[in-house]
């Protein structure tokens, strides 16, 4: 028998071949007897194909070198092991491996739902404040006092729009 299919989860010979059509997308999973049993594929009360697909998509060897999140130190190998990411910044770091995964996992690849408007507005303001404070230090250092005065006024304005709450 030339090149039998291997189990997506443990690479033993696969004997259970599952095809499921969700939202007009075809998903295929090949499993060995043991993994099929363990994952409840044979259980009529249902199992999570999303989880299976996730784990299966982790199995192909990562590109040589492997990436590492600068924010939290999480590596591609860690993701392969846990199936979970380390921190929000990991989604930038590992963007190239996440993107192909999303297509099989979800209905679309772009968020169209709720947006945390207030939190985002707060972040914009606080980013602006940080930048202005840098500008102010810079202006004072190079003795550009007119610029400094203008920047200070702007800082006060931004602080005012934060209302009672101090910036984080």
């Amino acid at each position: 028998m030339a090149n039998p299919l291997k189990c997506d989860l443990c690479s033993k010979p696969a004997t259970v071949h599952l095809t499921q059509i969700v939202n007009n997308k075809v998903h295929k999973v090949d499993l060995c007897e043991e993994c099929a049993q363990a994952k409840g594929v044979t259980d009529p009360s249902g199992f999570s194909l999303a989880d299976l697909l996730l784990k299966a998509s982790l199995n192909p060897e990562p590109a040589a070198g492997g990436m590492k999140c600068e924010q939290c130190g999480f590596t591609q190998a860690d993701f392969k092991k846990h199936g979970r990411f380390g921190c929000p910044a990991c989604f930038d770091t590992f963007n190239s491996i996440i993107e192909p995964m999303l297509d099989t996992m979800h209905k679309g690849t772009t968020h169209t739902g709720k947006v945390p408007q207030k939190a985002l507005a707060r972040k914009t303001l606080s980013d602006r404040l940080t930048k202005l404070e840098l500008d102010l230090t810079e202006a004072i250092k190079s003795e550009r006092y007119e610029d400094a005065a203008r920047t200070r006024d702007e800082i006060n304005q931004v602080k005012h729009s934060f209302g009672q709450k101090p910036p984080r």
Partner: protein
Amino acid sequence: MTIASLIDTPSELTDAASSKTAIVLMTRVRLARNLAGNSFPGWAKPAQREEVLAACREAVAATAPMKRSLSINVDELSELEKQILVERHLISRELSGAKAGAGVVISKDQTVSVMINEEDHLRIQVLRSGFQLKKTWAAINELDSALEDRLDYAFSPTLGYLTACPTNLGTGMRASAMMHLPALVIGNQMEKVVRAVNQLGMVVRGLFGEGSDASGSIFQISNQTTLGEAEEEIIKRLGTVLNSIIEHELNARQKLLEADASKLFDKIGRAYGILQNGHLLSSGEAMNLLSLIRLGVDLGVFPDAHRCVIDRLFIEAQPGHLQHAQHGEFEPGQRDLLRAGRLRAEFANFAKPNFTLSSDGPN
């Protein structure tokens, strides 16, 4: 509020579900949220977990629905207390086994619970008895917006709310309904239903979520995907699927009655007999018997008002609740004896079955 007084207050789920929505026992929506700039709970260092826990507990407790709530760290709870909270669907099994630096805030009426440092920093959940998807979503949406005032959520314009597991990206929302589907189980149609529901992008699970069995013919149906669709669209799609499952269950009941009513009445009558006279009942068997009595209520064999008794017993027959009521910890064998005794006492005063249904058939 203390854990002891919370446990002694009945859960929202023991509330009487009206007969119109009798097939859906409970509606639940949960949102996964994380704080920007912090490692996810599974990857965070112990000190970081404690920091996030403290910040979240404070922010959650300050919201309107959480006035006079229970706010507690998981390591302050006993094993039995954790089990009771799991049986009431207020915390997950995963949280009950969490390492240090995890907690939960539960509203006084037990309809809102926020788990902290489970798989994500925040797992916000609102549950309501009966079929109330839109109301439940409105309530959780409001709570989420109130939290957003105090916490900086990790969010990406393209990927939405960022979650530890990529299967929750986007809305971070899982909306679900707990359904009682005895006729589909008796008629061996559940497998077909599960397959059809899967194809519509929804998942079917047992009573206590992933990997649990469907004792008592109770199933949880929820959305599988979270990215690429707005919350309202997901809710609407799930509602359509649920309505069609309800219709199938009602048809299956009609078919069972038309094919051989005495076969179905025999099951219900025997269940009644065992509940009234049994001396050893495992929780699985008790759930299945109670499920048949509940079907009997829906068919008019027992008065409508008794449905809430069954819904209460569904929870009180669980191991954690049973042991709490008996003030001690017992081996499974002893529990079966206690459970049967408890049910005998309940059913001693239960209405007698009336198997002569009105001519226009069951509702």
